[in-house]
């Protein structure tokens, strides 16, 4: 796999994804550090995440890999409209070959960060606050073994408002984690749900109050897991991976993002990529905000 990105984004990635391994505690932290963009993941950031996970894999002293984000959010998803090397002088448009590279190596393929996380033999833990949207939801959160969330975190396939569900309904992990109805609701309404609701659906292992220190809570869970002998954790992880295979959740969904660049909007729908070309990502996102909202009840339990 070649290194995608442009010289600037590649140079920045090392600072945008920090690595804090602690061999004494057995906990390695992978920290998203691009707070100005709500930790949106550039392609080089994703490649760095994958290589850090693989590094943890080789380090016998590491038992737990903890993902978290600096700033107001864990992660808003993959960066949109990024120049990762596809924009060359000799071609005028995004090609199918570009989309294949993007949909495989940079998102869902066997060498992608998604699969590096889902395949990791260590216990993976996610600390979630603020937005956990789009790729952060169905490429990271659903593949981590344990999620610790702030109750007011906003989670979901909210990019589906302009790019479609892109795998958020068909992803078998999501169906097995949330139940088929909640997975469909999130995928077909593109509405965010809270950390509390995700606890009720079953994604979240531990939910802390809006004002509580979610990092402290995540570290406590990590420390409790890391107190177990490595052989025991490996045995349990092997059992979990086998069972995930048996229930059909061993691999990510088909590369849904592959098609998102080629979806055709109808006259009554927002043409997101055209809006991006004319006004930039920010304006395109704002144009989308005029849409109707789902009624309350996206997952509130009655108790």
């Amino acid at each position: 796999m070649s290194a995608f990105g442009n010289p600037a984004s590649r140079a920045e990635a090392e600072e945008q994804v920090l690595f804090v391994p602690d061999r004494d505690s057995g906990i390695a932290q992978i920290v998203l550090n691009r707070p100005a963009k709500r930790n949106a993941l550039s392609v080089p950031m994703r490649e760095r995440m994958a290589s850090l996970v693989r590094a943890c894999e080789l380090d016998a002293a590491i038992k737990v890999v903890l993902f978290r984000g600096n700033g107001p959010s864990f992660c808003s998803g993959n960066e949109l409209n990024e120049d990762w090397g596809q924009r060359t002088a000799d071609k005028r448009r995004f090609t199918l070959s570009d989309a294949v590279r993007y949909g495989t190596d940079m998102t869902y393929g066997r060498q992608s960060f998604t699969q590096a996380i889902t395949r990791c033999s260590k216990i993976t833990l996610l600390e979630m606050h603020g937005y956990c949207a789009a790729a952060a939801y169905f490429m990271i959160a659903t593949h981590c073994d344990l999620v610790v969330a702030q109750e007011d975190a906003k989670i979901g396939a909210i990019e589906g408002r302009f790019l479609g569900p892109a795998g958020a309904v068909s992803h078998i992990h999501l169906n097995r984690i949330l139940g088929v109805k909640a997975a469909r609701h999130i995928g077909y309404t593109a509405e965010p749900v809270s950390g509390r609701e995700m606890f009720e659906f079953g994604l979240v292992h531990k939910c802390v109050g809006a004002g509580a220190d979610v990092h402290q809570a995540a570290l406590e869970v990590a420390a409790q897991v890391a107190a177990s002998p490595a052989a025991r954790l490996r045995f349990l992880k092997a059992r979990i991976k086998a069972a995930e295979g048996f229930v059909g959740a061993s691999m990510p969904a088909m590369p849904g993002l592959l098609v998102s660049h080629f979806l055709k909007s109808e006259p009554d729908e927002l043409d997101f990529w055209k809006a991006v070309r004319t006004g930039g990502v920010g304006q395109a996102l704002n144009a989308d905000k005029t849409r109707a909202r789902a009624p309350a009840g996206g997952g509130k339990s009655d108790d």
Partner: protein
Amino acid sequence: MIDLGVSGQVAVITMHDGACLSAHSRRAGTALRDAILACGDRDDVKAIVLRSAQADFCPPAQAIVPDDDKLDAPEWSQIYASTVGIYQALCYSKKVTITAVQGRCALAGSALVLCSDLTFAAADAEFHAPFERLPEANFVLAALTMRLARAKSWTLGGAPMDARRALEVGLVNRIALSDVFAEAVDAARSIAKGPLDGIAMSKLMMESFLDSQGVGQEFDMAGFYAATLPGAAAPQDRA
């Protein structure tokens, strides 16, 4: 070690020492397995209630079993892990099976709860994940019962679930108001009002469903899991 009684088309199996099942006792395992298999073949039985005579359905610690009661690997497979072992006999029984749980429920107890159709819990019931030390416990059943991430959370998080939480996640069907065994028997009698043929057909559908979902494959892995069970998981090595 096991009492078996049948009345009004409901069989009641009473265990006297669940901890021996966790320790893979030959006598306790054989007795429970034979009782479950025997009920499955009786036309005068439509539902089975499985309970413990003790304050704990099955405590977290394994019992000490005498040397002459310990199993070698082939016997363990035969009595505990094979298609005619305890757990598969319960999971694929031709009768509707109900576990009535009070007190602590761990290891063999939790594995039995996962294999039974319905579970009634006393308010003091407490469910421990069995997978770390019991290779024959079925994780796929846990994932299908409480959803995948919750099954992981239960297994890796370390803490047992109280009855209320077990009800919320779907591991338990009802929390008993007073007498968990009596309420489980009431449910069994209610179920037994259905036609025997209908119950048999439903159980057949369930068997086909479970195997389409990988439950059988997971049972088949038990011997391989046992072979890789780390020594650190033995009781004397636990932190």
